[in-house]
């Protein structure tokens, strides 16, 4: 097990290294110029040239790459061009909202999607099943920002149940924290619920055709027990896998949701950084996102062995 852990962690290094290289080169080829952005709208050509010099953007790309990589190896992600702050610090400031949003979304999703998926599978072919699947297809069909606007209009402006925007740290108290997270989380979870409900349905449906389900029936177990203890448990591996794949989906959703609800999270940091060509920040954020993605999939691999005793590393 320990050996496996080490090897898996080692395997993530080339992936991250490749991501790092790819992103670095991609950014250096983009036409934007952070110096022009930094100089401001009225900046003169002379000012821009001066800023390029200070940032080291005049150096040849391989040299820049070398500098960045050697700093990276020392754990230094660099300094934001804009905020004159370490990127690490910037990211840490933004972690809480995004993590909070992701977790509430995940909780909402699992609480809704798994039950309806199981019910749909159990009652498959009925109108209930069709409704559930209809909803899930609809969930795939509406862009996340439209969902956001409609929810804000209804629940924040008409019914006044939730604030329009903003984020409160957990340190400011749990209620204000969760109160501001509910709408964005629901917005974000719509597509996610659709995905997980479908996968749950499909996996449970497949498991329901397995021999051991027949054995469970042959043992005279009540349907509920068969469904939850035998079917869902065995269907868990693909469901968990899709939750992991969904993290990528979540990340793209976060970018938009954070904009619509004005949540100061990593998604917005990224868009701001990309639009402003804040190279160190973009590089770091994408590296972090990729790292998280790899890590989550790694954790999911680990949960496999808890969910399924056949899987051992």
């Amino acid at each position, binding site marked *: 097990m320990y050996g496996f852990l080490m090897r898996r962690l080692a395997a993530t290094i080339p992936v991250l290294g490749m991501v790092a290289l790819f992103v670095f080169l991609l950014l250096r080829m983009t036409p934007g110029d952070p110096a022009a952005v930094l100089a401001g709208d009225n900046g003169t050509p002379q000012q821009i040239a001066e800023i390029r010099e200070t940032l080291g953007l005049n150096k040849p790309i391989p040299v820049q790459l070398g500098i960045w990589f050697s700093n990276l190896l020392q754990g230094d992600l660099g300094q934001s061009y804009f905020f004159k702050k370490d990127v690490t610090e910037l990211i840490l400031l933004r972690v809480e909202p995004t993590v909070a949003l992701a977790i509430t979304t995940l909780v909402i999703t699992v609480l809704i999607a798994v039950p309806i998926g199981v019910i749909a599978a159990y009652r498959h072919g009925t109108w209930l099943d069709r409704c559930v699947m209809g909803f899930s297809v609809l969930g795939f069909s509406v862009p996340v920002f439209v969902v956001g606007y409609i929810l804000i209009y209804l629940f924040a402006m008409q019914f006044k149940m939730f604030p329009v925007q903003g984020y409160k740290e957990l340190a400011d108290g749990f209620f204000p924290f969760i109160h501001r997270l509910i709408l964005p989380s629901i917005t974000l979870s719509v597509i996610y619920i659709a995905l997980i409900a479908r996968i749950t349905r499909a996996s449970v449906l497949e498991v329901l055709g397995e021999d051991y389900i*027949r054995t469970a029936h042959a043992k005279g*177990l009540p349907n509920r027990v068969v469904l939850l203890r035998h079917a869902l448990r065995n269907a868990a591996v693909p469901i968990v896998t899709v939750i992991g794949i969904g993290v990528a989906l979540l990340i793209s959703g976060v970018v938009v949701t954070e904009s619509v609800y004005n949540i100061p999270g990593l998604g917005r940091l990224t868009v701001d950084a990309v639009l402003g060509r804040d190279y160190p920040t973009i590089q770091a954020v994408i590296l972090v996102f990729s790292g998280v993605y790899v890590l989550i999939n790694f954790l999911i691999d680990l949960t496999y062995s808890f969910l399924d005793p056949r899987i051992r590393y």
Partner: protein
Amino acid sequence: MSMDTDTALTVSGLTVELPKGTDRRHAIEEIDLHVGRREILCLVGESGSGKSVTAHSVMGLLPKDQLTAVAGSIRLEGEELRHATEDRLRDLRCTRMSMIFQEPMTALNPVMSCGRQIDEVLQTHTSLDQQARTAKILDIMEQVRLPDPRRLFSSYPHQLSGGQRQRIMIAMALVLDPVLLIADEPTTALDVTTQAQILELIKDLQERHDTGVLFITHDFGVVAEIADRVAVMQWGRIVEQGTTEQVLKRPDHPYTKMLISSVPSLVPRHRETRRAAPVVLRTEELAMTYSQGGMFQSKRSVVAAQDVNIEIRRGETLGIVGESGSGKTTVARCIARLIDPTGGRIYIDDDEIARVSVGQMRSHRRRIQIVFQDPYRSLNPRRMVGASIIEGPMNFGQPRDEALARARELMGLVQLDPDALDRYPHQFSGGQRQRLCIARALAMEPELLIADEAVSALDVSVQAQVMDLLDDIRIQLDLAMLFITHDLRVAAQVCDRLAVMSAGKVVEYGDAAEIFANPSHEYTRALFSVAPGRDWTFGEFLTD
């Protein structure tokens, strides 16, 4: 009909309807049978005969939307089950009637420990406390002769051997002393040694617990070992029913007769030996070690075969027999170069092919052809069978017309309609497909034909025909044949020489007749001693 107290199950006039649009209206029709307590009734039939449907009807486990029992009655100790509520059926399951299945691996929940799976039965049907339940479970595990019950209690199915898993199933089925045990081909997936043990166990427990057993099988060897009475099914009907002695020795129905006489004999056929013919295939210290893992995984290696030295002469059949995992299929695949052996040499005539590159191998391909076990997966379902047969010759430059003409000839040779070349594989039965595979192999005009369990998946009547066909072809075309099988009866009928494999090694090698008569290796002897029905000679009927 015996008294109710002695009868576990009575089925009368049971008819199960198939969904509309099928070519047959009923899956089973007017089934009458009864199983007494302390009695084992074997239900025998080929695939599609309806024996599984019968068993599932009794348990109330028929797929709801597809199959429905429309007539007749099912009585368990006199209680009518056909109209029983779902709740009542659930109460009866595992308490009064239990069922065990063919594949113990898939029939057990892989993510739940064995102990818990038995425990669920007690939790559902009894009000015993945890301690009493555990005691009861350990006791039944002891009874089914599981070693170290405490350890296995918390083990998961995949950590057990096939035999142990089936014992867990049996323990689960019998823990509450049901009056009826339905065993649906419980030993088919097991190796012959394990099979013998399980059969003995079922017999033993059934006697001790006064259980009636409905035992479903296609194997007359097993019938001979275990049955008190036998019912033979064909096309959804019971065609003959009687005591074992009666049915096996004095069958009435022609179908029964045909079935029984198709069972290959354990006594090798007399065959001419061809010691002078040239050697077609020779292996020297052939070895195959599978290694898993790559850059980021630890290496694990499994020795599948080692030190395999065999040779086959023209016109001769060499059989390799052994239980699953013995390495017999690995040897066949190495020789066909479907996998690259990790050691040793393979000579076809005098050309070494174990080491040649993929490109060079291609020119040798046509000399070695292989027929696989599963007739349903051996033909590309999307291509017409004609295209499959002429693919090889055309690869080697034969013009299409010529290849097609040859294919028609071959169809005749394998006793199929030459006009069927433009059909798709799903339009053929399993036996026909296997013939097609043989035709495809022969189209290449090989020197060596490998049959890798080529008749194992076939029903016994079809099996006999295909075996005959293979033998005819070997003689007609003077082929060398490598015949891989786990079935000693089959081996006895087709092989001139025999190699017995165990744990990757050839433990005994020589003339088939000699080995059957005087097995010298301990493993061979053990293997022979557990062959089901070894004390019976099938197909020699007594007439009254």
